[in-house]
C-alpha cells in the first residue's frame, strides 16, 4: 500500500488526494475481481456441499475434475442471457438496485484485513464501517422489490428489509464484547489482539464471548438471507422473492452479492472471533493470508451445512427469534463480558 502511494506520488507526480483515489480505484478493481472469483468458487462449493449432504454428487462433468468449471460455465451462460426489464417496472430503479446491493458488499470488503498490513482500507473504525455500508444491501433489496412492480417481489423485499434491519442489531451487539476487549474498532487491531494460539482467540476467551460467537453466526445467516432464514427468497412461498423479475446479468449481480456477503460475514467471524490470520498453534504463522482464507472457507462450509440441514422458519418466528431471544441474549453477553473482563483483570 505504502509502496503504491509512493509510486503514484513520486513517479507519476500526483498530489496526495489523487494518489489516494488512484489507489482506491485499483484496490476496488482487485476487490471486485476477487469477489467475483469467490462467488464462482462458492457457487461450485455450495453445489458440491449440497450434493455431499444429499447423498449425490453435484456437478461432475464440466471441466472433468468434479465439475470444477460448472460455475464458470454458468456464469458465462447467465451473462449471455436476455436481459428482461418488465414493461411496468420502474426502469432506473430496477437497473440501479442490483448495483446497490453489490456496492454494499464491495465497500465492506475493503476493510477486511487479509494479512498483517494488507487491508484495502485501514480505517480506525473498520468494524463499524463494515456494518454501516452493508446496510446499503437492505436498500438495494427494497429497491429491487419495489421497482419490479411484482407483488411477490414486494413481499420479498419487505421481508428482507425487516429481517436485515432487525438482525443487524444482534449482529452488532455480538461483536461489542470483542470491541470491549480490544478497545478499538480497527480490524487489524482486533486481529492482533488475538495473537498467541487458539486459546487466545476471542471465541474461547470467556463463556460470554463463546455465546456471542454463536449469536453472531446465527445473525450472520439471517443477514445474508440464507436458509433457514431465506425469507426474502423463499422459493416455495414467494416464487423467488425480491429478484423474481430479474434475469441474466442483473440477476447475476444479486447472486454475486449473496456469495460475496456470505464470505464477508464469514471473514468477519474469523476476524473478530477466530483469530484472523493467526494460525491455531502459536509461532506457525507462515502464511497469514492463507490461514485467514482457510478459516473463512470453513465458516462458509458451516454456513452451507446449516442451510442444507434445517427447514425454513416462518417470517413471524424469525422476528420472534431476533427480538425476543437473540437481542436479549447478546445484551447479556455484552454486560457479562464486561464484568468478566473487570473480574479477570483484563482491563484496568
Amino acid at each position, binding site marked *: 500500500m505504502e509502496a503504491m502511494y509512493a509510486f503514484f506520488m513520486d513517479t507519476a507526480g500526483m498530489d496526495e488526494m489523487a494518489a489516494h483515489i488512484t489507489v482506491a480505484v485499483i484496490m476496488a478493481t482487485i476487490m471486485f475481481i476477487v469477489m467475483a472469483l469467490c462467488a464462482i468458487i462458492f457457487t461450485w462449493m455450495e453445489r458440491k456441499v449440497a450434493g455431499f449432504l444429499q447423498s449425490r454428487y453435484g456437478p461432475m462433468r464440466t471441466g472433468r475434475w468434479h465439475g470444477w468449471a460448472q460455475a464458470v460455465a454458468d456464469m458465462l451462460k447467465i451473462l449471455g442471457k436476455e436481459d428482461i426489464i418488465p414493461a411496468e417496472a420502474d426502469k432506473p430503479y430496477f437497473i440501479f438496485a442490483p448495483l446497490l446491493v453489490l456496492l454494499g458488499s464491495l465497500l465492506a470488503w475493503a476493510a477486511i484485513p487479509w494479512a498483517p498490513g494488507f487491508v484495502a482500507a485501514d480505517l480506525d473504525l473498520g468494524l463499524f464501517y463494515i456494518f454501516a455500508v452493508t446496510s446499503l444491501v437492505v436498500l438495494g433489496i427494497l429497491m429491487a422489490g419495489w421497482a419490479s412492480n411484482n407483488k411477490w417481489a414486494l413481499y420479498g423485499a419487505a421481508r428482507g428489509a425487516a429481517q436485515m434491519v432487525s438482525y443487524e442489531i444482534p449482529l452488532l451487539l455480538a461483536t461489542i464484547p470483542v470491541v470491549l476487549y480490544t478497545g478499538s474498532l480497527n480490524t487489524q487491531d482486533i486481529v492482533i489482539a488475538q495473537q498467541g494460539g487458539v486459546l487466545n482467540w476471542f471465541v474461547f476467551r470467556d463463556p460470554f464471548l463463546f455465546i456471542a460467537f454463536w449469536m453472531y453466526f446465527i445473525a450472520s445467516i439471517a443477514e445474508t438471507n440464507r436458509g433457514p432464514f431465506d425469507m426474502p427468497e423463499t422459493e*416455495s412461498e414467494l416464487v423467488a422473492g425480491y429478484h423474481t423479475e430479474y434475469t441474466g446479468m442483473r440477476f447475476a449481480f444479486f447472486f454475486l452479492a449473496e456469495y460475496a456477503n456470505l464470505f464477508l460475514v464469514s471473514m468477519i467471524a474469523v476476524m473478530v472471533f477466530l483469530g484472523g490470520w493467526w494460525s491455531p498453534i502459536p509461532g506457525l504463522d507462515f502464511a497469514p493470508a492463507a490461514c485467514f482464507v482457510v478459516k473463512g472457507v470453513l465458516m462458509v462450509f458451516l454456513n452451507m451445512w446449516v442451510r442444507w440441514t434445517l427447514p425454513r422458519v416462518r417470517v413471524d418466528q424469525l422476528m420472534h427469534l431476533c427480538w425476543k431471544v437473540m437481542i436479549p441474549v447478546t445484551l447479556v453477553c455484552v454486560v457479562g463480558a464486561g464484568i468478566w473482563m473487570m473480574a479477570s483483570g483484563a482491563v484496568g
Partner: protein
Amino acid sequence: MSQKLVDSLQREFGTDILAVDSPRGDESVTVAPERLLDVLGHLRCAGCEQLSDVVGVDHPDRAERFELVYLLRSYADNERVQVKVNVAEDAPVPSAAGVYRSANWAEREVYDLLGVPFSGHPDLRRLLCHHEFEGHALRKDYPIEQGQECARPEKLFTDEDIARAAERANDLVSDPDDVHDELHPSDLLTVNIGPSHPATHGALRAEVLLDGENILEARTEIGYIHRCFEKEAEDHTWAQVMPYTDRLNYCSAMLNNSIYAMAVEKTIGVEATPRAQAIRVIVSELSRIIDHLVCVCANLVDIGALTNYWYLYNVRESIYETLEKLCGSRLTTNYARIGGMSHDLFDGFDAEVRTKLDEMDVGNADVMKLIARNRIFLDRTVDVGVISQEDALSWGYTGPCLRATGLAYDLRKLAPYSGYENYDFDIPTGTNGDTHDRIMVRMAEMVQSRSIILQALDKLPDGPLNIDDNSVVLPPKESVYGSIEGVMNQFKLVYEGIQVPAGRGYGFGEGANGELGYYCVSDGTGHPYRLKVRPPCFPIFSSYAELVRGGMIPDAIATLGSLNIIAGELDR
C-alpha cells in the same frame, strides 16, 4: 351391509322411499327431489357423517333425464348407503351443501358437467370447466370432438368481496374505538398463489386476500388440467380405460389400475384370482409408499428442508426402477387388467422388493432424524392447517388426512378387498389433524405398507393369474394363433370390449390419499355408459380455502403440501 340404514329410512319416510335396490351389494334408495334434503338430514343424524360424492348420470331418453346418486358413508357404524333422485332437465334439485360441506364442490361439478341446477347452493359456478365454457360436457348430446377456446382468467375476488372482508376483519378487532387499526379495503392485497407458482406446480390456483402476511380469505380454482377423463371413458371400451387411469393420480398409478380393475370386476360380478389379488396388494402398497414419499418430501421442500427430498426421492427412484422392470414404464404403468393382471411378476421380484424396502427404512430413518425433534420443523407444522375430525368428515376427508385427526378408519381394514383381511397391520393415526400429524401419519403408514408387502410376499399364492372366463380375459396366445375360436374371442374382446352386463357398481379402495372409487354404470354394450371417479383429493382440496384462512402465506404452502393434492385426479 347397510340394511339398518335402509330400514330406518323406510320407517321414517314410508312411501316417500320410491324404490330400494342393492346392485352388487350397494344398498340404494330412490327418493323424490323434494324429499332429498329430509332424507339426507335423517341419514346424517342416523350416523352418516360423510357424503363421499355425488354422481350424475344422463339418460336423454328418459322423461326424468338426470339421475343423481349421493354416496353416503357412516364411519361410526361402518356402513354405506346410496340415495338416488331422478330429475327432469332444468328442474332444480335442492342443494345439500347445508347438510354436508362436501356437497358444495360435488354439486358444482354436477352442475358444470351435466347442467343440473341446484337451488339454494351458496356458490353455483362452474368448477372443472372454464367459466366461459358453453354447454355441459358430460351430457350425452355434447359431441366429444367439439372444442372450445376459453382464455380469459376469472377474477375470484371482486371489489365488493374485498370491502366486505375488510369490514369483517374490523368487526373482529376487540377495540372498536381504536381508529388507527381500522383496515381499509385498499390495505388489502390479492395475490394469486398459482397456477404458476412453485408450490402449486402449475395446476392449482388459490387467490388469497392478504392483510400483510396474513390470509384474510382465500378462494380456489381448479380444472387447469381437466382432460375430460369421464367423457373419454364413455368413448372407449372398459379395457381401454385402464391406461387413462394411470394419469389420474400419477404418483401412484398402480393403485388406480388395481382399484379400477376391481370396480369393473365388481360390476361384472367376478373376483380376481388369489394370486392376482396378492400381486395387486404388493404393487398397490409399493405405490402407496411412493405416493407418501413424494408427498412428504415435497411437503418438506415446501417448508425449506431441501435435503430430505433426496433421502426420500432416492428411495422412490429405486422403487420406480422395480416397477419399470415389472411393467415397462415408470409412471404410466397400466399393469392391472380386468380379471387379472397384464402379466406375472418377473423372476427375482421378491428379493428386489425386499432390498428396496430396506432402502426405504434407511431413508425414512434419516429423515426422521432430521425432522422428528427439529424445533423449526415442529414450529412450522404443529397447529398449522388444523382441521377437526367432525369438519374433516363433513368436508369429505378420507385417508391419511382423515386419520391425522384421530379417526382410525382405513378401507383396507374396515371394508377389506383384494384379500387385505389376511394381512396383519395397524392403522396409524394422529391426534391434532394438523400438518405435522398428516406428515407423521404418512411416515407411519409407509412402515405398515412395508409390513403388508412382506407378508404378501411370504404367502404369495401360486395358481392362475387371470380368471378363467374368456368373456372377460383375453384368451391365451396359443389359442389365438391356434384356433378359430381363440381368434374370434380375441377379436370380440378387443373390438367390442368386455360385455359388462347392464347395471351399476361402485368399486372403491384405499388410495394413497384416501377413498378412491369408481362408480361404473353399464348399459350392456362394451363401453362404460358412465364412469365417475371419486378422487380422494377433490373433497380435501375443497376445504383448502377454509383451512388456510387466518394463517400466513408460509402456512398456506405447508398445508397445501400436506394435503397431497394431485391435480391429475383432482381435475381428471
